[in-house]
């Protein structure tokens, strides 16, 4: 393949700032206390998910134990109404919930990118059609739509649920990416790439998408959070195979198994707390991404704020 001289020039020009930007992102992630806490918390859950078989003391589905035991040394989080070890369920549930959430979040972001960047870059009637579909998916209440779909595919595994969530939850990303693409479309380096004969697909993949990494990262975070909440919501409503071990199914069984009546708070607290902490770790990491996209949130300059800012950061 012949490379056009212009292409080389602009490639150098564009790649340099990206690399610096990426570096800045990690530095920012570590310099902001909130984001650092988020990163650590998230890594911890990731570690638990990977090492689940090592950490969990028992088989999560084994019903060999006494029922409704409160937390003790043998059963850190107690046992369920059918005599399952809640701690082991929590550990394995981390694995399911994180995998499904992250998978669905990534899928939704990819679909959103395909829709948003195509619509924003090509424009014209393509934009009109894609943007219209996006807006429809944006306003339709997502959980209600998911419930209706689930009512027709029975007893789904968490993985199928993740797919369905990914395929229905991409609209917000598509809208953001479209707006971002439209603002990049007429920049010099994009025009240069186009004039040098780069195909439409190449301009979108190599010029536009690498220049909106912070927006993409932020979208992945919220798509993952949304997917985790959607998956656990569906599981709680009993719309996921009740034999799977996820945080949502744990909550389903806790309610179905009379955890409230038996005073088994230790059955209810862990799965929800897990979801909340994973979600919190995600949004904490987003704080530094926000500052990257929106420098004014970072810059402490301006009146009024000066007195208080010096001590608030670092």
């Amino acid at each position, binding site marked *: 393949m012949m490379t056009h001289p212009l292409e080389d020039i602009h490639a150098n020009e564009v790649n340099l700032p990206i690399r610096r930007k990426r570096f800045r992102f990690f530095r920012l992630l570590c310099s902001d206390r*909130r984001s650092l806490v988020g990163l650590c918390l998230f890594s911890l859950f990731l570690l638990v998910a990977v090492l689940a078989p090592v950490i969990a003391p028992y088989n999560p589905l084994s019903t060999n134990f006494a029922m409704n035991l409160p937390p003790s040394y043998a059963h850190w989080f107690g046992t369920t109404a059918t005599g399952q070890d809640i701690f082991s369920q929590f550990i394995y549930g981390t694995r399911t919930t994180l995998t499904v959430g992250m998978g669905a979040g990534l899928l939704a972001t990819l679909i959103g990118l395909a829709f948003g960047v195509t619509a924003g870059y090509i424009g014209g009637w393509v934009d009109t059609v894609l943007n*219209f579909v996006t*807006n*429809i998916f*944006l*306003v*339709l*209440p*997502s*959980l*209600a*739509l998911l*419930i*209706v*779909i*689930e*009512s*027709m*595919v029975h007893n789904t595994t968490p993985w199928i649920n993740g797919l369905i969530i990914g395929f229905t939850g991409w609209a*917000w990303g598509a809208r953001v990416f479209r707006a971002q693409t439209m603002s990049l479309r007429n920049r010099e380096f994009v025009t240069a790439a186009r004039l040098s004969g780069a195909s439409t697909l190449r301009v979108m993949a190599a010029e536009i998408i690498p220049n909106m990494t912070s927006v993409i990262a932020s979208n992945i975070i919220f798509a993952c*959070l949304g997917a985790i*909440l*959607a998956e*656990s*919501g569906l599981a*709680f*409503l*009993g719309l996921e195979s009740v034999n799977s071990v996820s945080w*949502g199914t744990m*909550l389903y069984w*806790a*309610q179905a198994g009379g*955890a*409230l*009546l038996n*005073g088994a*708070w230790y059955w*209810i*607290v862990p799965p*929800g*707390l897990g*979801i*909340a*902490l*994973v*979600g*919190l770790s*995600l*949004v904490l990491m987003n704080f530094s991404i926000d500052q990257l996209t*929106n420098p*004014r*949130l970072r810059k402490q300059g*301006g*009146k*009024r*704020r000066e007195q*208080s*800012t010096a*001590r*608030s950061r670092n």
Partner: protein
Amino acid sequence: MKYVLSRLSFFIVSVWAAVTINFVLPRMMPGNPADAMFAKFQNNLTPQAMTALKLEFGFSNQPLIVQYFDYLKGLITLHWGLSFTYYPTPTKTVIAHSLPWTIGLVGITTLISVFLGTGLGILIAWRRGGALDNTLPIVSLFFQAAPYMWTGLLLLYFLSFKLGWFPLAHGYALSVQPSWSISFILSVLKHAILPGITIFLGSFSGWLIGMRNNMILTLGEDYVVFAEAKGVRPSRLMLMYAARNAILPQITSFAIAIGNVVSGSILTEVVFSYPGIGAQLQAAVLQQDYPLIQAAFLMIALSVLLANLLVDLLYSRLDPRVRAGGATV
């Protein structure tokens, strides 16, 4: 005027899309849920009634396009079929009994959430870096990340089971008759507090942090700096100069917010056995009551779309640029 027309036409087309999704989904799914749905009725209905019911839903041996128009006709003429669970009650009656509960609960909670979140957002942005600014966003984010059903279950366990402050379930006490009497209204309010708090906690964060960030951006604008240099009173600067403009983007994020709140309300209603449309939808799914599922989805979608339309129209009243057709949303 152009703006209003474009919003109106989007509303109509999105309602059409929701209706069409309702038509397409059962025909697209593996295992033909339509057959399963009619199999459910088999014991209850005479063959003639069965055929009539199928026609009502547009299921016939005719080509899809004819089925589609039959289905649309059925919808518009309000022939929404009979609920299987509450046979032979029409689904529209079931919906009419449950929808007001959800609209009341979600509507009032959302209003409180918007006002409190926006107000506190203005305040913490003004005192940026203060104690409240360092804690409130994080706490609110925790509850946003926490699933609605979990918050609901915990509130129910500690405040209702342990302390007995609030009722355990339902929309009102069984001892009072539904009427416009004081005792009934009090009972309804008492039953709505915990579900309301659950939805509030789940939705508050978006308004708070959204407003805070808008405020910070607006406070950096030159005209605000100039106004302060000119000696405008701080309270006037905060409310009339900065907040007034920072509030506009809040309204545009309503579309995404209301969808989340409605999703959360479905989960909350299930936890509290609240007589709303979300709990009804969940019960219908477990009973495989397809006519009710379809009607409930349609009404939820319609309510959300209508709420969006109203907010869009309100937005055009508040932002003169939109009315003039200058800015696109």
